[in-house]
């Protein structure tokens, strides 16, 4: 394999403590190395920014609800230029729900090399894997959802921790999943009857267990299994005024639990798109930010991480396994509504949404995301996401970086809002003059996310021995003054390496790489009780036989990267 030397770039690597120093980065045999021979191909990065490849901890980029979004929104293809195929590239299109090809190309353009699909319904795991397989360049893994799964609800109700863990290990193996995701715990099962759970103490109909018990039980199962990533929660009551209290109630469930794993992960709970969960007020009329309360709490708790879910003020497509929320949203905006309830496991909904800068609620949502990121004390624990495509498309990350790095850019946004005063009044953003550095941005986009995923031994840094995933951006941190340059440069990497292979050369995608699918294979003690329960549920209540449920590697996961864990006791 070719050797490369990326010379004289401004390097940002929070793991190594390199903050914009001029350094050379060497790549050989797919890895970052100390040095390479004289024959190595030299990439001149003088005047450019060099970082490890980006790692996205939460995006909806593959699977059934994403595809519902694509197929039921032909108009989305008109929001961005449909690009013809060229060279190694297939034709690609779509804006908020791009095709799989566009997903791969655009992430590569932003210097991202790893992206986690945030919610995989186990019953549809094959679909998720088919899409990930067809997505070029980026490494991917998917989080199966557990928060409304009948096995989990029953085992946790009966206090059977070991059975819960054994079942989760089995399901991760069957679906080739990477982590435990929990969406609106209990609420989506309640949605099977048109109901919801809006606080952590609302009992789930029939199953008679509370969201708090589900969240706590899943955190404990996660640590029992010593998974690379922590339990990944989207808590109850998303998107509603006054929901910050539910969020705090959920976060507090992690108190006193410490991480157990061999992957360098320190948190036991990752709260996703926390912007959507930081709302004050009692109605849309007195809607306001409670970013301060949430950021204060997360700052104080070392065993919690979060990603933000920045609202980008675009027309987009919302999609979530939080079925009742999507129904609620379509009652608000009266746009088209798709819903799929999945037997024994979960549900989901999809609704288009227009975040207008002229609607003050949207303006406040925009401000809350930025507020949280600017109140953060440790950006290793606050991650860049737009909950793609829920708060905005992932292609807007460079724009969010601009807002985070420039008070001037934020003021320009404020000035364009019809209800500027109201948005300034109800949030703390206008009093903040903090501007994040590229060092902090590198934490939010690669170092912090890699660590929270338990993948810091592979990604997120330029430490020799790690994967040769490196991005070079045409951005000179010493001379740049126009905030627009941030958005331009970080949306169009000049060079990108994935596993040591040159993917982007001088701004052009020249290879589709060797994409891998990450999944976790946990060995637990033999558990005949769980085996019997699984067989019984498949015989009686599933409509697919147990033998036809498993995702087999040959077709769906042709290039796996398996994390083997021994959790037997």
């Amino acid at each position: 394999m070719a050797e490369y030397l990326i010379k004289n770039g401004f390097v940002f690597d929070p793991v190594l403590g390199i903050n914009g120093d001029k350094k050379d980065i060497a790549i050989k045999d797919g890895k970052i190395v100390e040095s390479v021979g004289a024959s190595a191909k030299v990439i001149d990065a003088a005047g450019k920014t060099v970082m490890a490849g980006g790692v996205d901890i939460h995006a909806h980029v593959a699977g059934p609800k994403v595809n519902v979004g694509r197929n039921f929104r032909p108009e989305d293809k008109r929001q961005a230029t449909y690009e013809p195929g060229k060279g190694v590239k297939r034709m690609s299109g779509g804006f908020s729900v791009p095709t799989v090809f566009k997903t791969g190309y655009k992430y590569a353009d932003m210097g991202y090399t790893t992206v986690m699909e945030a919610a995989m319904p186990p019953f549809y795991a094959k679909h998720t894997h088919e899409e990930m397989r067809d997505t070029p360049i980026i490494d991917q893994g998917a989080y199966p959802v557990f928060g409304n799964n009948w096995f989990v609800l029953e085992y946790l109700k009966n206090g059977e921790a070991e059975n819960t863990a054994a079942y989760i290990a089995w399901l991760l193996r069957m679906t080739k999943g990477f982590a435990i995701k929990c969406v609106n715990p209990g609420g989506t099962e309640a949605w099977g009857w048109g109901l919801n759970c809006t606080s952590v103490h609302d009992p789930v109909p029939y199953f008679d267990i509370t969201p708090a018990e589900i969240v706590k039980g899943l955190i404990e199962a996660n640590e029992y299994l010593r998974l690379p990533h922590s339990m990944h929660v989207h808590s109850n009551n998303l998107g509603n005024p006054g929901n910050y209290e539910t969020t705090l109630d959920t976060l507090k469930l992690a108190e006193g639990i410490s991480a157990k794993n061999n992957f360098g992960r320190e948190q036991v709970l990752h709260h996703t798109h926390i912007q959507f969960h930081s709302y004050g007020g009692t109605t849309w009329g007195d809607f306001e930010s409670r970013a301060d309360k949430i950021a204060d709490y997360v700052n104080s708790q070392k065993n919690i991480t979060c990603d933000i879910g920045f609202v980008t003020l675009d027309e987009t497509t919302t999609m979530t396994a939080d079925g009742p929320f999507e129904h609620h949203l379509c009652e608000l905006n009266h746009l088209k509504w798709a819903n799929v309830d999945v037997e024994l496991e979960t549900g989901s909904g999809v609704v288009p949404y227009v975040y207008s800068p002229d609607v003050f609620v949207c303006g406040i949502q925009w401000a809350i995301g930025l507020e949280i990121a600017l109140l953060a004390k440790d950006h290793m624990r606050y991650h860049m996401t737009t909950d793609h495509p829920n708060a905005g498309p992932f292609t807007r990350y460079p724009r969010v970086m601009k807002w985070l790095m420039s008070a001037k850019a934020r003021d320009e946004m404020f000035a364009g809002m019809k209800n500027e005063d109201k948005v300034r009044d109800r949030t703390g953003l206008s009093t903040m003059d903090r501007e994040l550095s590229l060092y902090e941005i590198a934490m939010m986009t690669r170092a912090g996310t890699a660590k929270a995923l338990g993948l810091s031994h592979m990604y997120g840094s330029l430490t020799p021995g790690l994967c040769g995933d490196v991005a070079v951006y045409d951005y000179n941190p010493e001379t740049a003054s126009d905030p627009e340059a941030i958005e331009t440069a970080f949306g169009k990497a000049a060079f990108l390496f994935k596993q040591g292979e040159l993917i982007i050369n001088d701004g052009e995608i020249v290879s589709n790489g060797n994409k891998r699918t990450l999944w976790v294979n946990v060995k637990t003690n033999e558990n005949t009780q769980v085996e019997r329960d699984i067989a019984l549920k498949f015989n009686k209540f599933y409509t697919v036989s147990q033998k036809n449920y498993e995702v087999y590697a040959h077709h769906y996961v042709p290039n796996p990267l398996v994390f083997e864990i021994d959790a037997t006791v």
Partner: protein
Amino acid sequence: MANIVSDVICPFCGTLCDDLEVELSDDGKKILEVYHACAIGAEKFLHSQAEDRITRPRMMQEDGTTKEVSYEEAAKYTAKILCEAKKPLMYGWSSTSCEAQSVGHSVAEAVGGIVDNTATVCHGSSLIAVQDVGIPSCTLGEAMNRADRVVFWGCNPAHAHPRHMSRYSVYPRGFFTGKGSKSRKVVVIDPRKTDTASLADVHLQLEQGRDYELLSALRVAFRGEKLPDVVAGIPKDQIYEAADLLKSGRFVIIYFGMGVTQSLGKNHNIDIAIGVTRDLNDYTKAAIMPMRGHYNVTGSGEVLGWQYGFPFCVDLSRGIARYNPGETSSNDLLMRDEVDAVFVLGSDPGAHFPISSVKKISELPSVAIDPHLTPTTAVCKLHVPVAFVGVEVGGCCYRMDNVPIESRKVVDPPEGMLTDQEFLEMVLAEVRKCKGV
């Protein structure tokens, strides 16, 4: 002991039953019997064993006779007609695996073809309605476990999806429906006294083509507003009763078929049927599901969706994907003489398209890839027989509720026969040669 393969997937209809057992000869080469399948599904397995099956491609000669050719020659001819055409139509895709569809799309992208599937004459109008108003739906098991109100609108599963009622919708005992059919009230809305209607608790025998009015009347009745004495041939009392029956359910599922998608009103019928479902969600829980026909038409829509963003009628001829049913739909293209070559795989337009479209196919350079002899293979210039997906080769398929299930290989195809995926890969290689890629 009998040589039985279990958990076999039935490659016939969108019900995609996955509990078949297939008994093989001791050497594993012949299918002897098929258990659990309906009559149609069993026949699909058994007739793959026919002694007189066509096993090599055949080219039609000028005098109307056919001549056997090799797969290599067939792939060259297919690539040639696709590459020489300005706007080739690549139709079908519904009776094959997602793997084959995916290779087919690469071919279409290289030659600038139009990819359209059987939804174009089936549930395409449903797909358009979903683009207008969305769709609240669920998996078949969700309905089995919860639904106590089951509506069949313009569909006749007793004949078209023979095991649907026993596996999912009417008879099975689900988690919250422990008494099976006694847990459910079945409503059939159909102008005909179908065999499905004979099993219903309520049969609203509406006037043909008046579905929109009746659906609209139901929405009025849900709201307790006034109705005329008779709507669509149904007295208003019956409509109020039906509305109350649905509203009083814990979980309502509406299944609909070609009776509403291809009759007067088309996609607008589905729009308002989805409106009925949305309305019901204000009172109880409700879902609606199209009864998809071919076993993997749903998969074709899914693969097209993630690769191009549209579920059918995808025109790649301008180097980007365009979608405009009415313009980029197969019959409209054929009748307007807009396509100059036709490629058919996994469908039988010769049997399903209007005769005027079939005549056009017969006049154009054309190829049909299909294990069977069909009206389509009779009019196309080249017939390429291939292995049966789901019998002689496995592959991913999507059920009518979009649930992916991997079909299984049960026996080997006759010696030397290719699968459609293998043949498409040969065509793709030829196309790339021809295009100099």
